[in-house]
Every structure is written in structure tokens, then in C-alpha cells.
């Protein structure tokens, strides 16, 4: 097990740069999740760590070795792919044994190792099956087994759950997390699904267009998003953004509502004010900031999401699950001032 670090990592395909300097330190045993919209460079980063893509510039260190010029097999990593990549013409046992090809263990030791892994993954009874006799979840487990059997310093996962149905995905999410707690290897996990990222990660790396937007614990990125992109990417439904201005006298929404915060600007500037739907409720006792007409109801059981058409844009708010306001009625929405997120109107950076 070892620490992994990326330093000033860039990648260009035929002069088009797709990664623009990635800096990241992953601690020994840490579970790090890369998340971001499709095409932001997550897989490319992961494949560079694995040694499947050349490094255009920068350095990758695993343990205390710079691995830039090492072959994948010499980097002490293992990778699990989105479509499993388990060989259809080999039995489960052979597939798992494949991960040990370059290991120096003796034959009985290898067999012992395979048995151990099969036991941990609860697939001892499947060892002699061919992949086409397995379900999607079982196949993914074989792929994980093939990676585990090598006991690598770093596990790399590239969207391993996206081919599974929703229920299985939730289950495998939990299994991988438990597995991590049990084996303790460093894990770098790539996904485009922010729920996966939030639920599994020790730390989340949010990427966009080849840049890291923010690195932090799930709580950090949820409660203290570094910019408007992170704020809207993390959390479902997405954070509401309403226009406003920040001046020496304080924060004013574009509907004229003034809000007392400890934020102020020396010169007047345009801002986006972010409010999570969870924080926006109908509560006459709190600060009332917006009013509008309910256009849609989305009952979720314990609560109901309401879409409210206000004079400064549509927002999503949370209402009671039993007695939500009817569609067409006018409501006034409230928020606690310290739950507001303010972002610069031009750069999108959070205003501190």
C-alpha cells in the first residue's frame, strides 16, 4: 500500500490538451473518487495512472517511485473496467488467476490466494463457471477479484457500476466500500454519478474540462462548494441559483429582497445566490426571500418538491409530504441566511 501523487499532470492528444495540470495527493489507504461530467478527463487521468496512456508532462508517483516510464504491470496497480473485461473463454478461476501471472508466488500460494479472494467476494461456488453463466453483478465481482488477487498498492476503478441496474448498483456500491474497509488498499474510483461519489469517497475530486474544480470530503464539497459548478453538480436536485448583487451595504436579490449576511463588497458586483432546495421551505418564522406560483409537485413520500415560478426565475423548494401547497397557489419561500451560497457573477467562484 502506498501513497499516490499526481503533479502538474497534463495530457494532449495531437496538440489538443485535454488535461491541464492535475495536482493531487492521495494518502495511503484513502478512497478517492473522481467525479465530473462525461468528457472531463476522468478516464484519461486514471489511464495515465495505470500506464495505459502516455504522460504528456508532469509526474505520477506511487509509493516513493516515479512511475512515468514504468510498464503497467510494474506499477503495482490493478484496474477494473466499466465492461468488466473478463475473458469469456476462460473460467472464473482462470480469470482470477490471470491477475497473478506476473507474480512470483509459488503455485500453491497462488491457489491459496485465489481461494481467499473468492471467499472474500463470496464466489467460491462460481469458480468453475464461464463468464456467460454469470449475472452482471457476478461478472463485475470476478473483475474485482482479478484486481484484488494481486494485492496492488492502488486499485483503479473506471465507472465499474454503470452497466448494472439501479438496485445492483446500490448493492455493489456498498460491497466495494466494505471491501475497502476490509483490505485497506488505496482506491481511485472514477464515476460520473455524484451519488456514488458522495456515498463512497473519503475525498472527492470534482473535475470539469480537464481542470480540478475542488478536492474535499463529501461534506466539504456539499456544504462549502468552491464554485457554482461544484455547487450545482453535487446534490440532487441541483442547487437553485438566483441573481443578485453584493455591495458595501450587503446582499440584495434581483427581486429587491435585502438579506443580512456578513458578506460585503467594496465595489458593487453581480452575484449568483445559491440555495439548496432542502434549505428553501415555506416557513413564516424564517427569513422570507422569494414568492411565486407553484407550477409542479413532485411527491417523494416524506416530503414533496415544489417547482415555484418566481419573478427571478424558477426554483425548487421543499414542502411538507402530507400537506404540500396545490399547483397554482402562491407561496412565499424562506431560507436561513447562513445557508446561502454566494458566487461571483463572472468567475463563478464562491465569495467568502
Amino acid at each position, binding site marked *: 500500500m502506498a501513497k499516490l501523487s499526481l503533479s502538474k499532470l497534463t495530457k494532449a492528444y495531437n496538440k489538443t490538451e485535454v488535461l491541464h495540470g492535475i495536482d493531487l495527493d492521495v494518502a495511503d489507504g484513502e478512497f478517492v473518487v473522481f467525479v465530473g461530467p462525461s468528457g472531463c478527463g476522468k478516464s484519461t487521468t486514471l489511464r495515465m495512472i*495505470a*500506464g*495505459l496512456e502516455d504522460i504528456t508532462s508532469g509526474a505520477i508517483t506511487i509509493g516513493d517511485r516515479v512511475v512515468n516510464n514504468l*510498464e*503497467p*504491470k510494474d506499477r503495482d*496497480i*490493478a*484496474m477494473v*473496467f*466499466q*465492461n*468488466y*473485461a473478463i*475473458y*469469456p*473463454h476462460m473460467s472464473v478461476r482462470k480469470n482470477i488467476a*490471470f*491477475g497473478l*501471472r*506476473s507474480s512470483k508466488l509459488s503455485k500453491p500460494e497462488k491457489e491459496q490466494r485465489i481461494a481467499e479472494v473468492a471467499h472474500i467476494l463470496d464466489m467460491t461456488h462460481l469458480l468453475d463457471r464461464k463468464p*456467460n453463466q454469470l449475472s452482471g453483478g457476478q461478472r463485475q465481482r470476478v473483475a474485482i477479484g*482479478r484486481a484484488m488477487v494481486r494485492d496492488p498498492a492502488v486499485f483503479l476503478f473506471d465507472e465499474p457500476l454503470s452497466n448494472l441496474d439501479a438496485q445492483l448498483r446500490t448493492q455493489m456500491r456498498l460491497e466495494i466500500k466494505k471491501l475497502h474497509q476490509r483490505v485497506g488498499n488505496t482506491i481511485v474510483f472514477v464515476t460520473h454519478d455524484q451519488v456514488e461519489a458522495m456515498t463512497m469517497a473519503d475525498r472527492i475530486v470534482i473535475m470539469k474540462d480537464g481542470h480540478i474544480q475542488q478536492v474535499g470530503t463529501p461534506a466539504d464539497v456539499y456544504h462549502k462548494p468552491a464554485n457554482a459548478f461544484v455547487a450545482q453538480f453535487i446534490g440532487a436536485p441541483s442547487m437553485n441559483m438566483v441573481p443578485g448583487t453584493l455591495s458595501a451595504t450587503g446582499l440584495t436579490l434581483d427581486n429587491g429582497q435585502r438579506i443580512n449576511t456578513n458578506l460585503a463588497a467594496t465595489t458593487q458586483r453581480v452575484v449568483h445566490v445559491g440555495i439548496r432546495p432542502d434549505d428553501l421551505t415555506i416557513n413564516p418564522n424564517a427569513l422570507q426571500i422569494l414568492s411565486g406560483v407553484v407550477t409542479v409537485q413532485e411527491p417523494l413520500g416524506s416530503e414533496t418538491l415544489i417547482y415555484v415560478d418566481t419573478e427571478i426565475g424558477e426554483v425548487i423548494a421543499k414542502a411538507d409530504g402530507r400537506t404540500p401547497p396545490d399547483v397554482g397557489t402562491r407561496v412565499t419561500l424562506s431560507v436561513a441566511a447562513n445557508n446561502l451560497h454566494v458566487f461571483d457573477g463572472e468567475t463563478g467562484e464562491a465569495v467568502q
Partner: protein
Amino acid sequence: MTATDLRPTAAVLDQSAASKPKNMGQILRWVLLFLGGIMMIMPIAYMISTSLKWPHEVYNVNLIPEEPTIENYTYVLEDGRFYLWFMNSIIIAVITTISNLLFDSLVGYTLCKFKFPGRQIVFIAILSTLMIPTEMLVIPWYLMSQSFGWLDSYWGIMFPGLMTAFGTFLMKQFFESVPDDFLEAARIDGLNELQIWWIVAMPLVKPALAALAIFVFLGNWTAFLWPLIVTNSVEMYTIPVGLSGFGDEADVAWELIMTGAAISTIPTLIVFLIFQRFIIRGVVMAGLKG
């Protein structure tokens, strides 16, 4: 109540009305298939029939010989030349088939899975040789064989066919269906590129290899023009070349040629039966993947 009772009846009526034209279509299909089948079987039936006839009856079109005989078979099989040609054909077809399976797929794999400068040009160059007919190539081949001293040798007969543009193209297309993830997973597991090709990629394209094997084997087994040109001595003939010489100039011994041909279909049948299994299995496997 009545309405619900009537509904099944109506459905049945609908169905029988709808199934009429379907039956017509089916009949037409069967007729066409039957005619096609007859066309396929007739030459084979005549080959076998002729091989069972006496020489005087050969030009008689009846399918059932008047006096069936296996005299032709004993003659051909006891004639040492036929055995020699048969072995020549086997050696040439087997070596050429193995060579094509290895080298066509190696080149096809490289063209498919590796990005290198000039890849497209190499591919187009290989493909373009498909457009040159054999008849145009035999003279350069002959001159080449002559200057290398390959005339009248196995090597001379085989060398033009040891790799084919068609096989390379076929294999390249099939390797496209092998996901790169498989190869990358193997790379991480420590296989070198040659091992990845042999251990991971080749088993995944077995159906294509089987099809190629059948195709190349049949092609070489029945090849006539080039073996005829490049061989001089009777001992180097292949079956098609040898059979064509049965009989003398005035009188072609069709009954003997047909006997030789009938015997020589046996290896092609065996090859087909062996490799066809892989094709069907491959299709089944592909269906269950995913």
C-alpha cells in the same frame, strides 16, 4: 358478457385470415429453397453417378447408372499417382491454411489495434491487391519462382497464398469487435503484446478463424491454374492438376476424373465439419455476452 364471449372467436377469425398470405409466402420460400437445393445437389449427384458408370455410359444423362460399378474407385486408388497428388494437396492446403490463420490474423490485429504512422496506407495497399485478378499475377509469380529456383516445388506452389489480403481484411474487421479493455486488462496483468494477441485476442475471434480456415483450405484444395503452371513433374501435381490429365488427349476419362473428385471431397467435408462447429459456437457465445 356476450361481447367478451365473442372476442376470442373474432381473434381466431382474424388470425386465420391473416395467416393465409403468410402461408403463401411460406410456400414460395420452400419452393425457392427446394430449387436452390436441387441446383446445389445436381453437380454432386452427377459426380457420384458418373464415378459409378462404365466408360461407355458416361455421356448418358441418366442419374442412375445402368450397371453400377466400383471399378473406377479401385482403379484410382490403386494408381500410385493419385495417392501422391492427394498427399501433395493435403500438405499444401494444410500448411497454407495454418500460415493464413497465423499471419492474416497477426497483420489484421496489428492494423486494427495499434496506432502507428502510415497504418491507413498499409491497410489500403493490402486491400488494393484484392482488385488484381490471379490471371494477371501468374506471370510475375512464375518469373519470381524461376529466378528463385522455386519451380516445381511445394514452396513454389504455396508461396503466393501463404498470406491473403482477404484474410487480413476479414481478421482486421473481426478484431474490431474485441473491446480494447480486454487487451488493456491483459497489459496490466503483465502479458507482452504477442501474448495478448495469442492468449486473449485470438480465442475471441475463433468464429472468424474457423471461417477463414474453411475458406483458405477449400481455395487451395481446388486451386488449379497456378499449380498447373508452376509444376512440371507428375510427382509434384496437386489433385486438380493431376485429375485433369486422366485419360489421353483423344478421350478424357470423365469417369476417372469424377471418381478422383468424389474422393477428394472427403477432406473438404472433414475440414468443414470440424470448423463449422466453432462458427456456430461463436455465434452462441456472442449472443450470451453483453
